[in-house]
């Protein structure tokens, strides 16, 4: 959660007060963050949160309107060329020529970046082994499966040994098994020293892969931290309750000392508790019973990334068209 001070050597991406408007629409609304050398950093947010706009500014495909952004010490506006030479990109949509072979696509990329012949040929061999596509070397890209295409794109992003690899929704549209294997590849790449910046709307992806996560919604970073830090903000345990009078129940439960925050979600109440939930639960039940409130269901669980995401963005998926309807009752100063 803490950010390294200016001038600290291990910062590889530094973004300050970045803003981007499409007409009147604020796609990116003043975000600031830093990414440290060697880490896997995620932007987690619903579709339309501004993740892709932010990433497109960082990779110099969109021009920066307001704020500053530097990558590997180069300013994306004044040193765009240097930025481009320092990064690798895997785009959200597949960007392969269907009618070129795996080898040709990598060769093309190496040539685009002016890599010397010997170096680029060696690098292709190396990368094909890394992403396990040696056998597909001379296959046209249209004959590859979705997962193979993604791996090929990752290999392409790594051709020039970039300092930072940008992955925009790297596992979108892939089946669960392929996704998990993809995560392994990404972790391997990171282990070899490449900093990874990824955007995703999958909680498990952010949770499993990232060293640090920024949850982004409506163009703003809502909270940043490691997966554990984010989960800890929701207290030690979560208790979900459904009663015949949720309004009164919430007022009563505010008085219980170990309850940190109460939120209403649909027809359920979510309690964040600071102590072991199993010990708090009997007290809660008693309190409600004594007030004559009937409990119909109780659920106790450890906070997951899903809970964090839902708590901070107010909805599970923007796609479902659910308005962010949440009420937060804050206790203490937060």
């Amino acid at each position, binding site marked *: 959660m803490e950010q390294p001070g200016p001038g600290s050597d291990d910062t590889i991406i530094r973004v300050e007060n970045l803003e981007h408007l499409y007409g009147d629409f604020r796609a990116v609304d003043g975000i600031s963050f830093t990414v440290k050398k060697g880490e896997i950093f995620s932007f987690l947010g619903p579709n339309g949160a501004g993740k*892709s*706009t932010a990433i*497109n500014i960082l*990779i*110099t*495909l*969109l021009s920066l309107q307001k704020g500053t952004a530097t990558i590997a010490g180069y300013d994306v506006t004044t040193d765009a*060329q240097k930025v*481009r*030479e320092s990064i690798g*990109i895997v*785009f959200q*949509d*597949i*960007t*392969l*020529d*269907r*009618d*070129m072979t795996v080898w*040709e696509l990598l060769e*093309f*990329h190496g*040539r*685009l*970046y*002016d890599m010397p012949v010997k170096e680029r040929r060696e690098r292709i061999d190396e990368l094909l082994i890394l992403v396990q596509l040696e056998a597909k070397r001379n296959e046209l890209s249209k004959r590859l499966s979705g997962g193979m295409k993604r791996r090929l794109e990752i290999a*392409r992003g790594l051709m020039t040994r970039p300092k930072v690899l940008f992955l925009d929704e790297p596992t979108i549209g892939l089946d669960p098994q392929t996704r998990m294997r993809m995560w392994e590849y990404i972790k391997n790449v990171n282990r070899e020293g490449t900093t990874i910046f990824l955007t995703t709307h999958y909680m498990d992806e952010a949770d499993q892969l990232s060293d640090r996560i920024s949850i982004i919604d409506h163009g703003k970073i809502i909270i940043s931290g490691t997966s554990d830090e984010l989960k800890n903000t929701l207290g030690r345990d979560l208790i979900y309750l459904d009663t015949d009078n949720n309004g009164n129940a919430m007022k009563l439960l505010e008085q219980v000392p170990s309850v940190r925050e109460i939120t209403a979600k649909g027809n359920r109440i979510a309690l964040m508790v600071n102590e072991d939930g199993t010990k708090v639960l009997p007290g809660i039940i008693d309190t409600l019973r004594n007030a004559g409130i009937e409990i119909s269901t109780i659920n106790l669980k450890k906070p997951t990334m899903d809970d964090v995401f839902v708590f901070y963005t107010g909805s599970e998926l923007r796609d479902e068209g659910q308005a962010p309807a949440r009420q937060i009752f804050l206790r203490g100063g937060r």
Partner: protein
Amino acid sequence: MGYGFLTVYWRDMIRFFRFKTLLISSLLQPALWLAFFGIAMSSNFDRLMAGMPVPEGAYAVGYLTFMGAGIIAMTTLFTSLFSGIVILFDKNWGLMREILASPVNRNHIIVGIAMSGVTKSFIQAIIIMAFGILIGAAFFAGYTPVQIVIGVLGVLAFVAMFALGFLFLSAAIAISMESPEGLQGVMTLLTMPIFFASNALYPIDTFPEALRIISAYNPMTMLINGIRYFAIGPDFYALGQHYLFTPGEVLLSFLGLVLFSAIMFTLAWWRFRRAVVT
């Protein structure tokens, strides 16, 4: 980034030779024009013209020879104009984002595409000339080997300059458009007047005044003048018309094409600079 355009060229050529059906049909189509339209029309025109006297000692060429130059021009026009489609596909589903996010200067993209377009047009022009001669067109008739070499180079120089102009135009339109269908529509709309308001298939001297002026400034007419000058000769009769080109007029046509290409390059450069593909 000195050689970015060569990379773009290399990739385009891979695609050109990979699609065998497309490759063969693109080479076969002009030949079929010559073989069917050319032979059919020339058998009629030549019969009609038989009654028209050609001055003593003048050099008369048949219709096949006359329209053969037009077919070279037509093929160049179509190939160049439709070359933009690959840019559109690249933009929507292909490599354009990769290229735009790379350190390669955007002008190199335009230059690379232009080079591959010119190469394709060269291949087509040479095949049409060879096939034309095979079925009886009097290209380079009575030329010495040196004159033939000069003639072929002259034709190719005109073809290149004309192709560049329309390649740039096509690239500029393609990078600005969203759908292949829309692009196809615009291109078809463009080819019609450019092809028919030219001297490809008939002389323009008998056109109504307004159409004649448009045709005279049509880059297509300039190209065809150049091709006829180099492939047929500076002084010949066809369809009862006397064609006489001075080197000055031919140079003027060439400069007209240079100007046209320069304007189109500026247009393409401007569109590419502003292109945002995300």
